[in-house]
């Protein structure tokens, strides 16, 4: 199956507003696909339509080549919703077995698998405890196990990293990468670009229910061209702010304090900036020609979008300067 998920011009309206507006995307098999967008962009609604939790008002969802949402294929799909939740009064093992049964796994197989995963994620001693006895991080792990316990071909994760500490974040990342290595497909949503940049093979950025751009990470970066320079200081910044403000040299800048990401003005030379900085007495820790970070692209695409509001018809990619 080359494209396990094909979303074709789906639209979903809720009382008063359009959450998802004629959105199309297709997720190729064996990749990690990121659905990116600011809060309220329609990521969760899109995933819920894919999962058959919402019915689209128009448009179709095809999973594994068949028209229809996730319920038909629940045995082949693992879904981690944005709002996590388990039965607080149930025992950990029982919850896992029940959720696997709900996806069509036999009771016995589910038990074996659940114990295996609990062992792997260091929760073996907790399997007879109530969910409510577990710490938040442990509950997250249990929830994650419930998503992949039935070894699905497609994993859909809605904001999987939110609320995870760095250690659990790493565990999750490793598992996701391992999943792709085994030829499975992962579709996840996030508004944190660092995660997306590290993990995604392909991505799609949406805002206000519409697609702004999609493609492989490299494609997105190249179409979103422009020469970029990353500058990091070591103490003294000299006259850096003045130089960066020169529109003949720098078209746009993102300032992170000790570090800045510059988009060069058309025709400008990076060497000129370097010279000007050194002449002004700035001490540099880093001066690097780079492709734009995903974060930069995201802010460029989405920032003005959010500012111009829906009234203007959300001019697509307002700032491709």
């Amino acid at each position, binding site marked *: 199956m080359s494209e396990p998920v094909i979303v074709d011009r789906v639209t979903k309206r809720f009382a008063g507003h359009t959450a998802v507006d004629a959105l199309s995307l297709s997720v190729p098999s064996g990749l990690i696909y990121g659905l990116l967008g600011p809060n309220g962009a329609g990521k969760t609604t899109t995933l*819920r339509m894919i*999962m*058959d*939790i*919402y019915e689209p008002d128009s448009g179709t969802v095809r999973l594994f080549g068949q028209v229809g949402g*996730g*319920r038909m294929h*629940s045995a082949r*799909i693992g*879904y981690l*919703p944005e*709002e*996590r*939740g*388990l*039965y*607080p*009064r*149930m025992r950990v093992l*029982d919850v896992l077995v*029940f*959720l696997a*049964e*709900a*996806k*069509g796994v036999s*009771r016995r197989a589910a038990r074996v698998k659940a114990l295996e995963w609990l062992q792997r994620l260091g929760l073996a001693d907790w399997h007879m405890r109530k969910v409510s006895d577990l710490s938040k991080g442990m509950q997250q792990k249990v929830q994650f196990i*419930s998503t992949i316990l039935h070894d699905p071909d497609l994993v859909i994760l809605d904001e999987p990293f939110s609320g995870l500490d760095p250690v659990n974040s790493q565990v999750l990342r490793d598992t996701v990468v391992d999943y792709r290595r085994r030829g499975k497909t992962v579709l996840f949503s996030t508004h944190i670009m660092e995660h997306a940049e590290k993990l995604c093979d392909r991505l799609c950025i949406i805002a206000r229910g519409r697609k702004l751009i999609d493609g492989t990470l490299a494609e997105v970066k190249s179409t979103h061209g422009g020469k970029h320079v990353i500058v990091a200081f070591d103490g003294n910044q000299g006259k850096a702010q003045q130089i960066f403000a020169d529109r003949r040299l720098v078209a746009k800048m993102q300032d992170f304090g000790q570090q800045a990401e510059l988009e060069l003005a058309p025709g400008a030379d990076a060497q000129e900036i370097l010279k000007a900085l050194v002449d002004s007495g700035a001490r540099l820790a880093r001066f690097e020609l780079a492709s734009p970070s995903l974060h930069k692209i995201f802010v460029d695409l989405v920032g003005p979008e959010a500012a111009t509001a829906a009234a203007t018809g959300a001019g697509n990619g307002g700032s491709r300067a």
Partner: protein
Amino acid sequence: MHKVWAVIRREFVERVRTKWFWVSAILGPVLFAGIIVYQIVQSMGGAVRDVAVVDNTSDKLGKQVVEALEASGSFRATLVPVGPGVINSLVIDSLSNLVESKRLNGFLIIRDDLVQTGRAEYQASNLGMQTIETLQRTLGKLVVKVRLEQKGVNPGVVDWAQIRVALDQKKISHGKAVSDSATQSFFTAYLMAILLFMAILLYGVNVMSSVLEEKTTRIIEVLVSSIRPFQLMLGKILGAGAVSFFQFVIWGVSARVLLSLRGPIARALGADPAQIQTMSLPHIPGATLAVFIAFFLGGFLLYSAMFAAVGAMSSNEQEARQAQQPVTYLLMISYLSILGLTNDPSSTFARTLSLVPFTTPIATPVRWTAGSMPMWELVTSLVILAVAIIGVTWIAARIYRVGILMTGKRPTMKELVRWVRTA
């Protein structure tokens, strides 16, 4: 089907594991054992009591009273002749002391006005109903005898004339007379109605809180992406129903066991087991049991579907408590009508209640038990109930389907109608 089964099992196992399930499972038999022991102790109240008869009469009636009391088999009587006139307070005091120290159950004081106006006095530490009744009956018979003799009636004739009538009560049920008494069938019907009401309410609310739990913990999203909402609701209702059925089985079996143990219990308490065996018990024929079970299941399905919808449209406990009120009131109507139903099971009122789907689960079993109800009426109620279950479940499933994914404000009536229309 495997998925529905998984939902049923989860619902059943998790409920049965709770403390409350076992508390009420044990409470039932404990209550029942209490009733049995109470009955036995009551029957022991008829055991022989030690009394003194203070004879204050001028014609020495005391001796006859003592004989009559002894003859009744319920008393061991001692004569205390005091002579006519004022009773010595010393005598009363010493007798009271004997009662106090439990060497005497009580004492009877008779004066001349026993025969003249039919008055006597009994003082005891414990005024049991049965004791008083026996005393009154025995004294009454004696007074009648003495008064007739004073008018010159032959004592033999008086003895012969005195006879007790035992009323053999039989109930005509479905064209057959069965050994049953009015109080018994009333009692059975009443008990059934209360059991039905409690079980439907309790386990219906269970379904509601279970729906609510999945909603508030947001686990519903994972479930709905793998199980159809209708399957989920069905599994929940059947699971909770199985729990209540299990509860009933525990109660029924333990009641049976306790009943068969009545003899040993009576012996342990020092009562006469033979007397216990004749104790009246509500007799529940198989047909009544079948009607009870059928209407319990029907009523449970009807109401728990409504409770499931209520759970789905609320987003927290308080909201649910408010939203469940209309459903509870619907159930209360039949509960409040129990007395009316049992008093006159064939009235137009009773007939109407057993034809309305929301009251029939309680009204029909009560009418069936309390008096005769034609077979065709029973079948009609069942059909009406079945149709109502299908209709209500259909509507509830639509509300459930939309409601379980909603958060925030509770829907208005208008919105609910739209859910049902568009779901």
